[in-house]
């Protein structure tokens, strides 16, 4: 099939023949492709792993809702063929809580970046973990505010350069698994964009978990983080992950700090049970008001 020209003059990519369609065609809005993410960005890999995890966990796509905030990863909501919600900056967890409370049958997945969830949405993050709202948070961590031009994020490692830290970052970064565990998350894992199969398994496990689950995905940012720090392109970042990632399941989350070009510890760190907000709420109501007549 030849190229199609739309009314706006945008050249649409060649659509494959009907008998060979992309296996993710039923979960992604392929009419929106090519997406806005830069060449060799890891967010696309995280989305692939998530769609594979949905199929692996045998989730009904009609009962899954994706909520995204602002930023590069915030665009995920526009590319999935599920009920999706593109919300204000930092508030995807707050909106997701609303969806969850209004319809407890829906599995809410918050898909957003580190700048959105940990910086401006930091309070929503810790309080949703404290209440143990039943949702899955996929936090794509690229160590920088990429969409706005590479400013220092709360996850930027010490001494790493950014456009707002010309002499190197002096602020100690957040350790996302430690923050999540200490706030009360029931499932905490960290993977890089290179570990697709393990990431898929982890996401499938977290989708079936009841409670606040956090999966951190470390993603290469070729356009800002590695360009400003002269770390090469996305492929060099992937090679760095290949050589410097150590998998330690059940590691104490205190030891998971990420320094500038130091070893990254990946794995599943926390898997525990806690009563969720809805369970506590209904239990409390029956205690106070008596059982439903």
């Amino acid at each position: 099939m030849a190229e199609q020209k739309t009314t706006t003059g945008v050249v649409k990519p060649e659509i494959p023949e009907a008998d060979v369609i992309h296996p993710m065609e039923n979960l992604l809005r392929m009419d929106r492709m090519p997406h806005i993410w830069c060449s060799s960005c890891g967010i696309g890999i995280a989305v692939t792993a998530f769609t594979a995890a949905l199929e692996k966990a045998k989730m009904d796509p009609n009962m899954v809702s994706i909520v995204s905030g602002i930023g590069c990863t915030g665009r995920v909501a526009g590319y999935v063929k599920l009920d999706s919600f593109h919300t204000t900056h930092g508030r995807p967890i707050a909106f997701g809580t609303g969806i969850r409370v209004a319809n407890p049958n829906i599995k809410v997945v918050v898909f957003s970046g580190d700048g959105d969830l940990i910086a401006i949405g930091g309070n929503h993050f810790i309080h949703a973990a404290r209440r143990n709202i039943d949702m899955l948070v996929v936090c794509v961590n690229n160590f920088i505010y990429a969409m706005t031009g590479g400013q220092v994020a709360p996850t930027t490692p010490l001494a790493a350069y950014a456009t707002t830290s010309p002499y190197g970052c002096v602020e100690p970064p957040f350790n996302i698994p430690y923050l999540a565990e200490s706030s009360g998350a029931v499932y905490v894992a960290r993977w890089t964009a290179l570990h697709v199969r393990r990431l898929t398994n982890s996401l499938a496990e977290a989708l079936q978990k009841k409670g606040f689950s956090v999966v951190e995905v470390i993603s290469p940012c070729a356009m800002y983080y590695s360009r400003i720090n002269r770390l090469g392109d996305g492929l060099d970042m992937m090679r760095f992950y290949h050589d410097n990632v150590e998998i330690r399941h059940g590691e104490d989350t205190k030891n998971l700090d990420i320094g500038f070009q130091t070893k990254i510890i990946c794995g599943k760190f926390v898997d525990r049970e806690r009563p969720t907000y809805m369970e506590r709420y209904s239990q409390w109501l029956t205690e106070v008001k008596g059982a439903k007549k």
Partner: protein
Amino acid sequence: MKLWRKPLDSDKIKIIRGEIHIIKDRCKGCSFCVEYCPKEVLEMSEEFNAKGYHPPYVKKPDDCVECHLCEMLCPEFSIFVTVKKEDEKPVTVASGEEQT
């Protein structure tokens, strides 16, 4: 792969072969698929796509073992693998009005 002896069940085991489909105009030339293909089936081509990137091409189409790693690692959703049909038999229509 070199083996020091022929496996006893080598005639019974059939390796599934994959067929790689590349949507060239979606590719942004990150070359993850080329780097991480365990069988080194793919290679970057010299040609340009509509966006000015170099998409990969299938260098050794018979070596693909349908592991789907390129499909999982592609950030652009532009490469996927299907099972290669070994012997394509003509499709016979089971029922329908067309047959008289």
